[in-house]
């Protein structure tokens, strides 16, 4: 009986430190899921929150409206869909970013990229096709005139 209580105690302490570490890593209280480097998952994954993948994911990722990061140690064999996609690790599959896809230095992507904005850092490896869709001229003009106004004052 005593033993069990003791165990519960130590477990809660462990939990507290674990969450502290997460707080440090994120630097904010905003909710984000983290798939750590030793985590290996095979199957279907869906989420409606920011997601950082440092581990291995194989299968399908249905992730929309939010940000997805494949970290340096992340290995993904799946099609990815999110608002912002940042890739630092390896991805095998199509990457769809509703707003932006960023391939960081050291990243390796085999697949197609679909996004209106793409950033590729020096040192990124990419093999595939890029489709940016049609440019929205109204948006570009509106932005330009706003810039002119701020420059004029």
């Amino acid at each position: 009986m005593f033993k069990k209580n003791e165990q519960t105690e130590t477990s809660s302490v462990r939990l507290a430190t674990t969450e502290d570490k997460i707080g440090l890593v994120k630097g904010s209280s905003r909710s984000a899921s983290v798939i750590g480097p030793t985590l290996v998952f095979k199957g279907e994954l869906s989420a409606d929150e920011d997601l950082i993948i440092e581990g291995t994911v194989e299968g399908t990722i249905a992730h929309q409206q939010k940000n997805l990061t494949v970290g340096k140690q992340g290995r993904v064999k799946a099609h990815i869909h999110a608002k912002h996609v940042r890739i630092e690790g390896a991805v095998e599959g199509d990457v769809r970013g509703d707003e932006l896809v960023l391939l960081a230095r050291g990243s390796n992507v085999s697949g197609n990229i679909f996004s209106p904005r793409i950033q590729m850092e020096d040192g990124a490896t990419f093999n595939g096709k890029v489709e940016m869709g049609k440019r929205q001229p109204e948006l570009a003009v509106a932005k330009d005139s706003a810039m002119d106004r701020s420059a004029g004052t």
Partner: protein
Amino acid sequence: MEPGTQAHRGDAELPCLETDEGASAAVRPSVLGPTLVLRGELSIGEDLVIQGEIHGNVVGTDTVVIKRGARVSGQISATRIQFEQGTRLDEVVLTGSIARTSGD
């Protein structure tokens, strides 16, 4: 974004995605948030916190914490399994040293 700005400007637009260079090598615990739904097989060699749904088998070498509001079905084996009141466990087989907590 203006043309010619540094590539790192992309980071500024994704503040929540910042990956701490220093912490990347350190053990980063895995947290499966409340909207995360996993169907499949999962194995992990570090602490795991489950707030969302997992349907399938989980094999962990460390502590698995099942938080309030989580839904789990399948087999979970880990060195330590801790679950809060209010978790929903459907046809779950837990293997390991188990602790139940009342949460916050």
